[in-house]
C-alpha cells in the first residue's frame, strides 16, 4: 500500500472524514470506467460508484491492509456491478481456438491499426470493448485502466490467475480482429 494512502486512511480513522475526498478523487475516474463498461449506463454507473465509495467508507473497519485500498474498493464496486447486471451480456466462448482469433491474412494492406490516428483507435477500442464477453472486458479494464496485477484481478474476480491471463490474451486478439474487421468494412463502404 502506498505510504500516503496509509496516512490518509489513518487520518480518516481518527475522524477526519474530509480526507476521504482524496481517495474518492484518486479512484473515481477509473472506477467509473469499470462501472460504465459493465452497466453501459452513465447514470447508473455514477450511482453505483457513489454507493461503492459510501460502502467502502462504512466498511473501513473490515478493510485489512494486506491489499491496497484500490483493490479492495474495486472489489466492492465490481461486486455491486455484478449484482446489478446479474447476467453477462456476452457470454465467454472459450472453445474457440486462439489461433482462429489471430487474423493474419488481411488481404488489404491498407487496413491497419498502425495507419489510423490515436483518436480513431481509441474510439474503435471503446466501441469494441463493449462487444467483448464480460469476463474479457472486465479483465482488460482492470489490467489496463485500473493497472491491477494478474494476482489482484484473480482475487477480485475470483478466477485462477491462468484464466485471467488467458482472458486478457483472448481479449487482445479479439479486439485486434474486430477492429481490423471494422476498418476493412469502413473502407469497403467508402
Amino acid at each position, binding site marked *: 500500500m502506498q505510504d500516503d494512502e496509509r496516512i490518509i486512511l489513518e487520518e480518516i480513522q481518527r475522524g477526519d472524514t474530509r480526507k476521504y475526498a482524496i481517495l474518492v478523487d484518486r479512484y*473515481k475516474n477509473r472506477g467509473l470506467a469499470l462501472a460504465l463498461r459493465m452497466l453501459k449506463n452513465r447514470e447508473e454507473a455514477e450511482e453505483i460508484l457513489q454507493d461503492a465509495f459510501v460502502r467502502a467508507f462504512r466498511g473501513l473497519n473490515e478493510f485489512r491492509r494486506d491489499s491496497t485500498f484500490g483493490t479492495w474498493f474495486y472489489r466492492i464496486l465490481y461486486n455491486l456491478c455484478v449484482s446489478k447486471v446479474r447476467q453477462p451480456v456476452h457470454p465467454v466462448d472459450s472453445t474457440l481456438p486462439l489461433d482462429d482469433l489471430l487474423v493474419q491474412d488481411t488481404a488489404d494492406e491498407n487496413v491497419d491499426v498502425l495507419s489510423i490516428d490515436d483518436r480513431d*483507435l481509441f474510439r474503435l477500442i471503446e466501441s469494441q470493448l463493449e462487444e467483448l464477453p464480460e469476463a474479457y472486458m472486465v479483465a482488460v479494464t482492470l489490467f489496463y485502466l485500473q493497472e491491477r496485477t494478474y494476482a489482484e484481478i484473480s482475487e477480485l474476480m475470483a478466477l485462477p490467475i491462468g484464466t485471467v491471463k488467458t482472458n486478457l490474451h483472448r481479449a*487482445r486478439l479479439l*479486439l*485486434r480482429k474486430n477492429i481490423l474487421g471494422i476498418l476493412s468494412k469502413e473502407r469497403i463502404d467508402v
Partner: protein
Amino acid sequence: MKADDEHLGAADFDRLMESGGDPEQIVQADVHLRHCPRCRRVYHQMVRIDQALRRLPLPRPGVEFTAQVLRKITGSHRAYGLSASIAAVFIAILGTCFIAFGYLLASRYLGGEAAQQGSPIVGQGVGVVVTGVRWGISFLDSVFAGLLSEQLVRAVVYVATAGGFMLVVDRLLARAMRSRLRVGRQQSAG
C-alpha cells in the same frame, strides 16, 4: 511454436507481448519476427492496441461527484448522530421518570421504616436510591442548617442525580460513536 509452418501463432504473440514463458521460445519468435514482415506487422498491431489500451481516456464523473459522496458520508454521520441524540433524550426521559418515581416513593417512605428495611413494593433498587437521597438531604441540611426548605433540598438532590445520570449516558454514547468511526488500530497493526 507456430500456427502453421511459416508464421507465429497466438501463443507466440502472447509470449512476446508478456515477455514471459520459455526464454528460448521467445528468442525464436523474436528471430522469426525479424525475417517475416507479415508476423512483424501483426506484432506491431498488437503492440499498438496494447499501448492504446494503456492510454485510453478515462471518463469523468460529474463535477459534484466527490462532494456528493462526502455529503452522503456526512449525512450518514448526521443520521447516526441524530439517532444517538434521540436515544440520549429517550434515555434521559426514562432516567428522569425513574428518578421521579424514586422521588415519589422516597417522599412516601422517607422517614418511615419501609425505606430503611426495604419494601416489597419498591424493591432493593429504590431502597438504595432512597438511602442515597436521605444521605444527600441530611448532608445538605447539616450544611445549610435549616436555611432551605426540605422540599427544595430534595429537589436539588434529585436534579443533581438526574443531571449526573444524563452526563454519564452522554459520555457513553459519545464514546460509542467515536469507536464506531475508528478503525481498530490493532487490526491495522496486524
